[in-house]
């Protein structure tokens, strides 16, 4: 099996690792780096569960090879809260508004929404729904996720205004 050593940033930290060239980014994160917060739901790029940010843009980590992440910055759920453990406003809002049930799709949802709120700080409900239309959740019916996102956006705008 072909191996390659790759160098990349994970949640702001430089990492160097040897990976099989066939290994997906999702498997590398989960099993190579023990960052098991990124989940896989379909392994064919539809459900959005494995979404991470690559240089700030959401990608399906099941559809990408680890070697393709060489030289890039990958953000995962493990890096969403602040270093001191303080929740990101999305995490707070998801808890307040019951934006998760089984929690399996949640990391992918949060990473997708982090990108949305960076680009669209004051989204409409329709924009939130559109942003997560590539993330399947079987538990919540999405309404609480939408409500949580709108709340997080308000909080983030207020903080920015401070």
């Amino acid at each position: 099996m072909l191996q390659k050593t790759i160098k990349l940033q994970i949640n702001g930290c430089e990492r160097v690792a040897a990976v099989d060239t066939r290994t997906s980014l999702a498997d590398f994160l989960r099993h190579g780096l023990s960052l098991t917060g990124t989940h896989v739901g379909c392994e064919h790029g539809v459900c959005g569960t494995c979404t991470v940010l690559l240089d700030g843009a959401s990608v399906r980590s099941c559809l990408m090879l680890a070697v393709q992440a060489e030289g890039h910055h990958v953000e995962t759920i493990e890096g969403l809260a602040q270093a001191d453990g303080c929740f990101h406003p999305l995490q707070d809002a998801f808890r307040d508004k019951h934006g998760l049930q089984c929690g399996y799709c949640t990391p992918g949802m949060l990473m997708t929404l982090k990108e949305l709120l960076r680009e669209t700080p004051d989204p409409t409900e329709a924009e939130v729904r559109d942003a997560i239309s590539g993330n399947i959740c079987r538990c919540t019916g999405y309404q609480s996720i939408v409500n949580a996102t709108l709340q997080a956006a308000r909080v983030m705008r207020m903080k920015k205004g401070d």
Partner: protein
Amino acid sequence: MTDLTLEDLPLVEDCAPEDLLEAPRALKKENVEVKPSQRRIVGESVPRLEDPALLTGQGHFLDDIALPDVLHVAFARSAHAHAAVTRIDVEAARAMPGVHAVLLMDDLESVVTTRRMPLSAAGAKNTTTSTPFILSNDEVAYVGEPMVLVAARTRCQAEDAAAAIEIEYDILTVVADAREAAKPGSPIVRRELKTNVLNSIEVGYGEVDEAFGKAEHVFATDLWQHRGCGHPLEGRGVLAEVRPADGGLYVWSSTQMPHDLFYALTGVLGLDENHLRVMTPDVGGGFGPKYCLYPEEFAVPAAARLLGRNLKWVEDRRENFLAAIQERDQFWKLEIAVDANAKILGIRGTLVHDQGAYAPKPVNLPYNSATALTGPYIVPAYYIEVQIVHTNKVPVSSVRGAGYPQAAFAMERLLDLVSYELGIDRAEVRRRNLIPLDKMPYTKPLKARSGAGLVCDSGDYLAAQAETLARAAWDDFPARQAKALAEGRYIGIGLANAVKGTGRGPFESGIVRVAQSGKVSVFTGATAMGQGIGTALAQICAQQLSVTPDSVTVISGDTTMSPLGIGGFASRQLVTAGSSVHIAAQEVAAKAVKAASAILRIPEDDLELVNGRVQSCADSTKSMSLGDIATALRGAPGYAFPAELEPGLEARVHWKTDALTYSNACHVAEVEVDIELGEVKILRYVAFHDVGKRINPMIVEGQLHGGIVHGIGNALYEFMGFDENAQPVTTTFAEYLLVTATEVPPLELIGGETPSPLNPLGAKGVGEVGTIPVAAAIISAVENALQPFQVRITQTPILPPTLFHLVRAAQAAPLKATITR
């Protein structure tokens, strides 16, 4: 030593003077206005205890568990729906890199007591000619049936090797349609069977023929109902750890039924119960498929025993499409007899239920459908004949709702038919037939699976419908519809009522234990799969012990921690486990007061439990914490123990029930149909639910939202397709459509809170009732929108191409276009 008593224990002495004085005061300051012991915890939307870990990527789902030296498992599966297996050549696979073992059923023979699975949990001997094989090597009966187990160093090596196994088949005749399969002379799904009909049951009561004989009107309809798959976002998975020290085995499974698996595995593996522990880690959704036991759950532990190695199998989505249970198809033929005023006199008919190739569980699903048909309505006479028929497709068992959605759809379609034929408003037809409040509790002459009578115990169904109609502006709709039609828009409204029997017994375990730290643990056989059952049980326990919910830890789904347990299904856990925990926590509280009375020498009547301390009502400085009481009750070597007390600050309760408690719902959907695209857009969705006492309203609402959206999928999107050779043709989420956020309108929830008279919490189950009326309400609305074309819809789901062709057919032949698959 023996002259010492409990009061002499140093710890009690130590805690008396200072510790006990400071803490209560500090706590009291925060609660000047509300007496802490009366603070309401049950009934509050307490943030979920499960969330912090899940929000930070710190959950522990099955594939997140890392064991040393684990081998990864993949299965070679049948490529054909029905075939005799003539040759399996594993040599090439065994030689592949990283491969440790390639195992056939014969290879597992030495570590199992049976080659096929037992039916439910009644022991290894309880196999039938319809329970699945652990590995099927002689004849395969559905695409995806597990045949060969490969264990390799990595998962990709295991999958590569599984693909390299050479299997030769003699293709046999495939049985793809349950209706054809039920006919005499049909080819048979498996050669060991003489007929495809697994079972025929008759359900009913009253004088049906007489009712039809005297009826003013009789109307008939044929219905096809399809419910697809469960699709939790986390698939199935099994991890087996061999324990060399004692020859034992730990098994983790992403299941709703750890105790079922425990009992079955002890039988199949011939293990002593004390050598096996089954655990559920965090479960990424259940929705029914994890209610069944599967061949993989036996093959992986058996192979681990054989190889003496830790093994992990994690299902991928394609396997989930092929080999996890589905609900799939029911074919109904129904007649309804009504009098001149649209009062129901009787219902009769037949139901053909597609069971798939095997029956891993008793056939509860069609039984539920048959007994649930009459739902919240008074039906004086009823008879249905049910045929449960094998086909060469993956086995069928419960998906969220478990046969109730089909029953509701059938009943509501009949009522819409009555309305349509008699020209009476759909809501009015229902109003005339709903069980009125003054007839509650209303006994239906049917039996639940437990044998107990089927009793709608409480709820005001008429008021529920009235409130829902008012909220949805039902009466104004014709005007809105006429206006839309004038603009060339086809909008429609539909309604449906439903009930769901919840809280299925016979019991669920609840063990409440206070640690010396004062922390409380709850152990239960209930299974957490995302519903927030841990938070709800913590609230129930915290209320009784006057502690905060976050000081309670709930450990569920672990057969060592909770030796007895039933599991997660039938909207049962809050009612059953909740009642057990409620009573157990009450017993612990009473015991704490009794112990404190003995230790502090204060009469029990003069003590109260406040903020996790038992204190004197008169003088709160005289108190003991629950932790100190637990410490005292743990005993000390050689010291006397008060005769009136039992060791341990804990209680163990198995609250029992045979009855079901009924949640009820009324839904109104407003839709718009694009007749050029066959597309349905939901404009508005109003849903009433009465689920009894709400322990955590936020969680209840979340369950209802999720349930409704599952129902939307069943009405408009989810279709598990097979071709004529029973080859699955929708095996990705791009082909099998789950509802996404953009298809769902804001859901308007309203509700009542009629306490259940059947359990100490007054609670009713909430996991499924939201799903049950949805397809009925939406299809009714779609049909209403298409009134100008006079179409009748007799199926669910209704996908765009079907709807498009239905409208086209109606336009070409303007009378009644009916579709039946």
